[in-house]
């Protein structure tokens, strides 16, 4: 059965998609894992980093994105098929990586997010489309070793659908003042959700992202994150740190031709860090 990890933070722009994509690539290519990326973020960034945007558009127009899943919930229809929606052998590395698949998101989710929220009971989670994704995926999850869920910057219904199938979650943070404020509410909310739905959802850890090593604030914050692991109830902070990097920014372009992960992420820094992050992720997932 797949080990499912949601990548979440209430704040946007902290590197959720970057970390999801990096883990997906390294797990599939360097560790031979079968990986499914589920893009729950209506911004659709993870999707268009893995498949050309025109292909995504074609799929979106034919009901083969997650928009259709939630639209079905609102309309009482049953059009969505995860089997049809999953795009196989994605990425620009070698023209596609065997064992790396994506379940695409849709910009149209923005239009219906509020309506889905209105029919959801956030206290007991007994009503509303909390388990729509789980029900739609069914036995498909068995095909994968790892499923990575790129969540939107909220803990709304769409994110809860990701948590409802998750074994653990990762919290990417930029090591600055504001990014840190979001950690306790995530821990509280996920714990509440896990209790109500009788699931065990482990906080795997915090991953420092967009680190600028020459910045005193960033270094101080990382030090405090590591100390807080002991002093407060924060999950562990990963040893591997994702640096702020032009290579990582350029890696988002799915139209660029690359043959290796070294070419995609750059040899000098980001590649080594992301490779180490994946090894650390695997060791935590195995515990």
């Amino acid at each position, binding site marked *: 059965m797949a080990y499912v990890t949601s990548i979440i933070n209430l704040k946007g722009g902290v590197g959720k998609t970057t970390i999801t994509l990096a883990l997906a690539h390294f797990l599939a290519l360097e560790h031979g894992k079968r990986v499914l990326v589920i893009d729950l973020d209506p911004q659709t960034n993870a999707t268009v980093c893995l498949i*050309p*945007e*025109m292909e995504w558009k074609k799929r979106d127009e034919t009901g083969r994105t997650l928009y259709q899943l939630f639209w079905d919930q609102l309309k009482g229809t049953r059009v969505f098929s995860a089997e049809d929606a999953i795009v196989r052998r994605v990425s620009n590395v070698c023209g596609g990586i065997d064992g790396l698949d994506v379940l695409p998101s849709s910009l149209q989710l923005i239009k219906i997010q509020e309506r889905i929220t209105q029919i959801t009971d956030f206290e007991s989670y007994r009503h509303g489309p909390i388990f729509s994704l789980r029900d739609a995926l069914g036995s498909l999850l068995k095909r994968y070793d790892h499923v990575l869920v790129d969540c939107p910057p909220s803990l709304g219904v769409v994110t809860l659908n990701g948590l409802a199938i998750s074994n653990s979650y990762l919290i990417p943070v930029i090591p600055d003042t504001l990014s840190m404020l979001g950690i306790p509410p995530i821990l509280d909310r996920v714990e509440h959700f896990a209790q109500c739905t009788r699931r065990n959802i482990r906080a795997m850890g915090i991953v420092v992202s967009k680190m600028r090593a020459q910045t005193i604030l960033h270094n101080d914050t990382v030090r405090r994150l590591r100390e807080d692991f002991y002093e407060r109830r924060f999950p562990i902070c990963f040893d591997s740190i994702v640096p702020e990097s032009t290579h990582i920014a350029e890696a988002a372009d799915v*139209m*660029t031709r690359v043959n290796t992960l070294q*070419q*995609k992420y750059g040899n000098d820094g980001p590649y080594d860090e992301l490779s180490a992050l994946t090894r650390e992720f695997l060791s935590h997932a195995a515990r």
Partner: protein
Amino acid sequence: MPRVKRPTDSTEGESLTNETQALVETLRAVASQIEADPALAARLMAGPAPKAESGETAQEAPRPTREVVAPPLDPFAVLRQAGEQGLQEALASLDLASLKAIVRAYRLDPARISARWTAPERIIELIVEQVTARLNHGRAFERV
């Protein structure tokens, strides 16, 4: 200004070699000069002067550089004006060095997988593909 320690202040001075003795004498002379000249002391305390402009560094040994070929055309402008066919034709008239100059100047191959390609048609295909993709970037997100 702290005084330079004289060799006679210590028994270590008795074992100094001739070269060391010469160095000590030189430093002592420099120290004396600094003590006597407050302006020199101030300049030394201020640190090294700012680096000279490029025009003033004529004495530096020239670095060996590869000849850089300027891109003969802007592929984005050509594609906008003449379309894909027009860009193909414009590129077909260029030699390999010029094609690679376009790839380099417009960063069309950041991973440099085309660095060793020698067939112009492969480079032309890469340029057309990348320029077209970048010009159309974001189109799928319009009017959703």
